[in-house]
């Protein structure tokens, strides 16, 4: 069947199982949008307010489901507006395909109108990218893009398609969905060595990261922890990978991690690291990180072994396979001293939290907000966030009842990520979706409220409004002598009026009673709702391991 390049593109997306795309039209993608119009019964396009929102939506779509998210933008500014979204996906290893149009091949290199070298720009922030200069390569390039995005360690792939390739015509033959390439299985001797290290351990700590998030291995992790008397901690990206009701689960470790989780990791004699990359926010000073511990690292990416932290054993390949084979070789063991030490740490943690809560005389504290969210949110709710204090509180306080329910920009730390991501997550799942944001982050991409209203995406936006850029302010308080340079917003924005202007519902919440009432109403509203939650500007995220610090530097009260 002979089709135009634009038709081939859309047919190939449909062939690859894509049902929803996010994007924004423009001069060099008119043909692609014409094909979207033609095939609109087979593929749904969500028009965002800005290309950045489309990229974050494709990312959120992927995080919530594991499917490859797709976004489309025109050449030039359309393409550059995707950049932050692509980089966000890259740093968190999220499979995504970004399609951009470009000027016809004859105009490439002439600084033509809206021409930009987007493959050059995105080289360091994509897993791979393509410039398609021949229509005969188009369909196979799209298929390869999907295969690359989801195979191995996933990541974003950009395909740049010049106008003449979209306009030209060529034969199209449908193909099956590009399969995820199988990961190599780790050799038996490495598995045995790993099991030996685990069996020798007295104080084991299983450390779960984003690489385990989509593998559905939560129950396997808990089962191994019970077998060997280990505790479970996670990185920020590993938060919803493990069932949190297990008493062995200590929560996130690291800069703003739970006290017990960070200290237990420091005191462990074996860390079984599953799909983590030992980011600086997780380790603090690497020279002082887990000095008493042997580390066994499981990862699909060979370059993650010994990159940030030197490990005793690295197993590169299929993480789930390695984990279950190691677990099968582990002997049942009990370490009462270790477990009682961890209990003590948890008791200390509770005492710190209690002390902070007692001292806080604000009418509405972050902890109260999250207690209400936890109590009132329906099962399976997806929580997305922006970046800053609200994000860390979410990581500390919110309970996730299944994997892929926590959608947040970990590696890049992209303020303005959350609303687009929430829309993508909702479009993909139709599950209840909450965005927890701050007044700083929300200000970055709140234009997407228009999209949420138009497409009836009932995201509940909990806007933790403290009138300041709280996380930077916290650093200024602790490390910069309270010199609040450019972190006091002093804006006159009326978020309730603003939300209503966009066509959303809105509430103001200044007390726990207000918030509970508003939150319950919002969850049942069936449309986007903004809750302007007033919190004190000097609330802090604690504990805090200062940047580059060691466990002994941990700050538990101010």
């Amino acid at each position, binding site marked *: 069947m002979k089709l135009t390049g634009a038709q081939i593109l859309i047919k190939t997306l449909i062939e690859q199982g894509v049902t929803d795309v996010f994007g924004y039209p423009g001069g060099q993608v008119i043909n692609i949008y014409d094909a979207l119009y033609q095939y609109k019964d087979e593929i749904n396009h969500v028009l965002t307010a800005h290309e950045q929102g489309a990229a974050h939506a494709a990312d959120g779509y992927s995080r919530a489901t594991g499917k490859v998210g797709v976004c489309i933008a025109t050449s030039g500014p359309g393409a550059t507006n995707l950049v932050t979204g692509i980089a966000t996906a890259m740093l968190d290893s999220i499979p995504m395909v970004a399609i951009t149009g470009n000027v016809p091949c004859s105009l490439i290199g002439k600084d033509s109108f809206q021409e930009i070298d987007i*493959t050059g720009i995105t*080289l*360091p922030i994509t*897993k791979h990218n393509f*410039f398609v200069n021949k229509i005969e390569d188009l369909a196979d390039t799209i298929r390869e893009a999907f295969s*690359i995005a989801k195979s191995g360690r996933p990541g974003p792939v950009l395909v740049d398609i010049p106008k003449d390739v979209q306009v030209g015509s060529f034969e199209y033959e449908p193909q099956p969905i590009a399969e995820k390439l199988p990961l190599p299985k780790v050799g038996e001797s490495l598995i045995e060595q790993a099991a030996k290290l685990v069996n020798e351990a007295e104080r084991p700590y299983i450390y779960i990261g984003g690489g385990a998030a989509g593998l559905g291995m939560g129950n396997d992790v808990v089962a191994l922890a019970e077998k060997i008397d280990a505790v479970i901690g996670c990185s920020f990206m590993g938060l919803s990978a493990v069932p949190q009701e297990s008493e062995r689960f200590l929560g996130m470790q690291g800069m703003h991690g739970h006290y017990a989780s960070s200290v237990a990791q420091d005191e462990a004699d074996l860390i079984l690291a599953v799909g983590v990359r030992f980011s600086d926010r997780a380790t603090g000073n690497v020279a002082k990180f887990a000095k008493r511990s042997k580390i066994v690292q499981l990862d699909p990416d*060979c*370059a993650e072994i*010994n990159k940030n932290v030197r490990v005793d054993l690295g197993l590169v390949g299929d993480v789930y396979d390695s984990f279950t084979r190691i677990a099968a070789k582990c002997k049942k063991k009990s370490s009462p001293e270790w477990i009682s030490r961890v209990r003590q740490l948890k008791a200390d943690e509770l005492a710190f939290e209690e002390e902070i809560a007692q001292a806080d005389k604000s009418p509405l504290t972050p902890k109260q907000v999250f207690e209400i969210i936890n109590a009132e949110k329906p099962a399976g709710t997806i929580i997305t966030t922006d970046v800053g204090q609200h994000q860390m509180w979410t990581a500390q306080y919110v309970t996730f009842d299944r994997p892929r329910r926590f959608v947040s920009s970990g590696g890049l730390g992209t303020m303005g990520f959350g609303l687009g991501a929430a829309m993508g997550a909702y479009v993909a799942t139709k599950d209840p979706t909450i965005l927890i944001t701050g007044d700083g982050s929300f200000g970055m991409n709140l234009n997407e409220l228009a999209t949420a209203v138009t497409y009836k995406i009932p995201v509940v936006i909990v806007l933790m409004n403290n009138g300041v850029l709280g996380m930077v302010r916290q650093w200024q308080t602790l490390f910069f002598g309270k010199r609040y340079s450019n972190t006091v917003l002093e804006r006159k924005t009326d978020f309730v009026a603003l939300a209503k202007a966009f066509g959303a519902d809105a509430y103001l919440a200044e007390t726990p009673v207000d918030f509970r009432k508003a939150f319950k109403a919002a969850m049942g509203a069936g449309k986007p709702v903004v809750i302007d939650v007033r919190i004190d500007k000097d609330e802090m995220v604690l504990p805090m391991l200062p940047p580059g610090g060691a466990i002994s530097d941990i700050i538990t009260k101010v």
Partner: protein
Amino acid sequence: MENNKFVIAVYVENKAGVLTRVTGMFTRRGFNIDALTVGETERPEYSRITICMSGDDYAKAQMINQLKKLLVVKKVEVLDDEPIKRELMLIKVKNESENRSEIMTAVDVFRASVIDYSTEGMCIEVTGNPSKIDAFVKLMQPFGILEMCRTGIVALDRGTSTLFSK
């Protein structure tokens, strides 16, 4: 950890933009390289990049693993301790009559050749391992080097083993 010099050979797809992907990764990851050459191989679909760098074993392993992740890279190997290394240099020196015979003796001893000659200057071609080239440059310094240009090294393992047979 000791810093050693080593040579990495990389087979990459022979396509536009591939070198940018490889060198861009070096910049991004903060790898310092001493020299890099690229050229065609016995397989037209691949180019061979020869990289000289120094670093400890962790830097070496990280460099190799990061190279392996690039989709355009087909094969990466650290060459044996003593691979065959060759570099070519063109060097233009002043041709002053009182120095002429000394220059010609050096050319002879180094098995170099004079490829352009005038009464003011001459251009000499030298091939060999990098230390030989260094020695020749040092020798020419007193006579007045006008201009010089080195290719960076190419290297192959000794014996019949090849990158693809490893």
